[in-house]
Each structure stands twice: as structure tokens, then as C-alpha cells.
């Protein structure tokens, strides 16, 4: 009953990355969010979130190492 209506549209990697980045910031425009809801699948969001989490850890680590060196 809760299937996404519009299955035809496919999200690009950039769109997934933007949605995950928005989630990390906690800020999202309504129109962008509605577009996300139409095109993104839960699996894409989960995989995007995991990659985003890994990138977050790596980038903070790189920053820390840069400062310490």
C-alpha cells in the first residue's frame, strides 16, 4: 500500500549523495525532499548512508591527521 507511485524515475548517484548530505546537515528543501521521496528507494538511501558515514569518519580522520602533522 505504501509503494512509491513513480517507479519510472531513477535517482542518479549525485542525487543520492545530495540527499544523504542533506540528512547529515539536517536541512532539506521541501521540493528537493519531495523529489527524493519520488525517486529514491530505501536500499539506495541505506547504502548511501553507509558510504556517507564512512566518508564522514575518513574526512574527520584526515582533518585530524592534517592538524596533528
Amino acid at each position, binding site marked *: 500500500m*505504501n509503494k512509491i507511485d513513480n517507479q519510472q524515475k531513477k535517482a542518479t548517484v549525485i542525487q543520492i549523495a545530495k540527499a544523504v548530505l542533506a540528512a547529515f546537515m539536517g*536541512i532539506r528543501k521541501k521540493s528537493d525532499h519531495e523529489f527524493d521521496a519520488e525517486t529514491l528507494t530505501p536500499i539506495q538511501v541505506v547504502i548511501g548512508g553507509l558510504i556517507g558515514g564512512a566518508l564522514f569518519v575518513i574526512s574527520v580522520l584526515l582533518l*585530524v591527521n592534517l592538524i596533528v602533522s
Partner: protein
Amino acid sequence: MAAVHGDAHDHGHDDHHPSGIMRWITTTNHKDIGTMYLWFSFTMFMVGGILAMGIRAELYQPGIQILEPELFNQFTTLHGLIMVFGAIMPAFVGFANWQVPMMIGAPDMAFARMNNWSFWLLPVAASLLVVSFFVPGGAAAGGWTFYPPLSVQGGLGVDMMIFAVHILGASSIMGSINIITTILNMRAPGMTLMKMPLFVWTWLITAYLLVLVMPVLAGVVTMLLTDRHFGTSFFNAAGGGDPVLFQHIFWFFGHPEVYIMILPAFGIVSEIIPTFSRKPLFGYSSMVYATASIAILSCFVWAHHMFTAGMPTVGQLFFMYATMLIAVPTGVKVFNWTATMWRGSMTFETPMLFSIGFIFLFVIGGLSGVICAIVPIDIQVQDTYYVIAHFHYVLVSGALFALFAGVYYWIPKWTGRMYNETLGKWHFWLSMFFFNLTFFVQHFLGLAGMPRRVPDYALQFADFNKISSLGAFGFGLTQLLFLYIVINCIRSGEKSTQMPWEGATTLEWTHLPAKAPYHSFETPPVVK
């Protein structure tokens, strides 16, 4: 928030239910189980509160007055364990049981029998914790974080605590699976994920966090158990283990646990503020994204609890930066609540007062959290009363105030009766005054160097401790007023209407009669 059509149905024929004690023992009804969760958590809140009164009575003046140091340590340990695992967490599960099915238009929870079991495990665990005071050696006394080596050395009370934590963890995991399945599979037609009330969203994300971290807690207490009784040395340096390993594993559970206790509070406040501002929630999708963000980031910050345990500079900086970044999505939420109120047609009934109190005081707790995240400061304030003040601002004026707000907001729907508004406002203002009297001065005590978990202290701390203790006694007594208000509401409150709050828009208000019937939404509503 979601537009719905259709009128409230006559639910009178749905209101039959078993009676007597067996109703409560065998029930699979989400409302009954929710009620039991809420009464259980209030009972444990009173037990934990009595322990807090004991702690503050001992600290009223320097010297040992009424509690021997060993017993004092048991009081602090069990106060923390009971409040976290027995009061706050079950209270939110009680809210989830009552509200989630009604807010998504489902007839009940997905796994109704497992729901019954999830609840009835709790009194067993609570009994283990309380009875442990009376076994040889007394209750666990190594702090609510039960760090080894103290927790390896303790007596039978520690084993009882470990068993209690196992049981509570099992209960939480079952409850979470139930909530996830209910939300994902049982929403009314038309209620897409992004039309769900924010309380439901926060609980969905919280439930995932619980499933993620409760097994970690179960694992670490099992390692503790095998270290105690089966000759392993996970946390014993003499046997090749490492006591700091315990801290890492514990806090990998413990920090997400902080958000487990606050995200549903965010959800409750996000329902109440739009209702009493008579405006939709500002930035609904941002709020959902921010909640997800907080949940993800909460898994990367655990070691800020152990900056003084020994850590390379790179590790300290990593956890410091990650912790400070988590303030961003939390700040987004605070801005959104404020923007929701901005130019709203606001009224200040008790639920709204507690919600505004929540925002005001939670920001203070969040700010002191960011201060504690800074390594050089944390090294100074670690294990002082500054930290006690910080986390009580987050957990009492954060989680507990939101719970009070939620009870006042939904009790008309739960009971069909209104609470006494005047007394409710007294409850808020007295809680506000005494809470700050108790905990604000603890910032000063901490900055002046008073350590936590001590039954006695140096003379220069005497005045602030006396103020704090007086505040604590006042705060404790004020909660008896809350009990009176609730009982008075149930027994003789004025009859409520279907929509006592004109700004409310969620399904339980728009579709169900004044008192939610025993069985609701057997035919799901259609959400547009």
C-alpha cells in the same frame, strides 16, 4: 499534519475487554500494554527518586550523616540504572505503544503477544535490581556504567544487575522490532513515510538505534559475567585483557543510548509545539533528516566519554570534532521548533509549557555538552558535578519534561477526561523552579572541583550542596503533585471532547472519540 477524510465512527461496540487481574496479565492490547508501561515507569521513577532523595539528604551537609559510603555508592549506581532503564526508556515505550498505532491508523502493534512479553519482562528485571539491595554485599556499587575492575570485584548484587540488564535489553529489542514492523507494515492507506507524524518518525529511528546497540550492551555484560565466573580475562590486565576495552564497548552502546532517550522526546515536543502554535511544524522534512543524522552521528562519538582514560591525540581530536558536529542537526531542530512558534497563535496550556521549558533547558544541557566535548575542558571537568549537571539538564529537563508534556497532551485521549489545568501549571512552574535550583548550582560545584560519587566533601562546597539538596527535595515532592493530577484526572476529571486541542491534526484526534476505544482503527482510515 496529514489531511484525512471521514468522520469519527461510533466505537462503543469496540469497548468491551476482559476484566480483573487477568486482563493485565494476558493482554495483547496496545493500549493496556502502554498503560502498564507508563505506570511501571512512574513506579520506577519513584523508586529512583527515593534513591536520589537519599543521595541529596546525605550531601545536604559535609560529613557522613545517614548513608555509609558503601550504601551511598549503591544508591548512586542504582539511581542511575533505575532511572535510565526502568523509568525513562519504558516510559517512551509506553508512549509508543499508546500512540504509534493510533497515529498511523493501525489496529494494534504488529506482534501483540510479543508486546505482552516485552512488558512483563520489566517487573522481573526491576525486582532483581531492587532486591539486590538486600543480598549479601548489597547492590552493585561501581556506578551505573559498571566499569571493571569494580564490577568484576563486586558481590551477588552485580550478578543480579547483569541479569537485569540482559532482561531489559531483551525487552527493548523485542519492543523495537515490534515498533519497526508496526510502522513499516501497518500504516493506513495513503500514509506514506513522509506523511507520518514526527513522533512516529523519531520512534522508528530510535527503534533502529536500539536494535543496533542493545546487543552490544548484552555482549559487554556477558563478557563481564564470564570474567567474574568463568575464568576469562577480557577486562583484566593481569590475564592479558584491558579494562579500557570495557569502556569502549560500553560507550558504543552508551552514547547512542543517550539519543535513544532523547529522540522520542524530540518527537513528543514536535507534536505539541505545532498544536499550541496552531501552525504546521516548520521544516518537517528537515526534522526527519535531522533525526536520522543525529542517529547516525551518535554512533561515531562514544569515546568523548573517556578522554581521560588514555587516548592518542588523533583519537581525542577525532571524537571532539565528531561530537561538536552532532550539535548541528540538534541545532536545526531547536531552530525549527522556534520557527514553528514564530508568529503562531500560541496558547500556553501545560503541555506547551513543558515543551517550551524543554527547549529552554535542553539548550542549556546541549551547550554544556558541547563544552564537555572540548578535550582540554573535559579533562578538567571529567567526573565532577559539572557532568552531573550537564546530563541531568539533558535527561530530566529534556527527556522527563517531554514525557510530562506528552502525558498532559494525550491524557484526554487516553482517559476521556481532562486534567486540572491550574494544578498542571503549578506542576510545571514548581518543577521548573526546583529543577534549576537543584542542578544549576551543580555547574558551579563541578567547576570548583567537586567530584561525583562521593558521600562527603570539602567545606567550600557546603553552601551550593545545601541549595541543591533543598531543590531536589522540592522537585521530588512536586512529582507527587503530578501523581495526584493524573489520579484526579482518571477518577474525576471533567469529560473531554474528541478535540480538546483545536490545533491538533493527527489521526487519534481527528478520527477517534474523546476516549480512545479499546479497539481502534479495525477499519483503517484513508489518509490523503
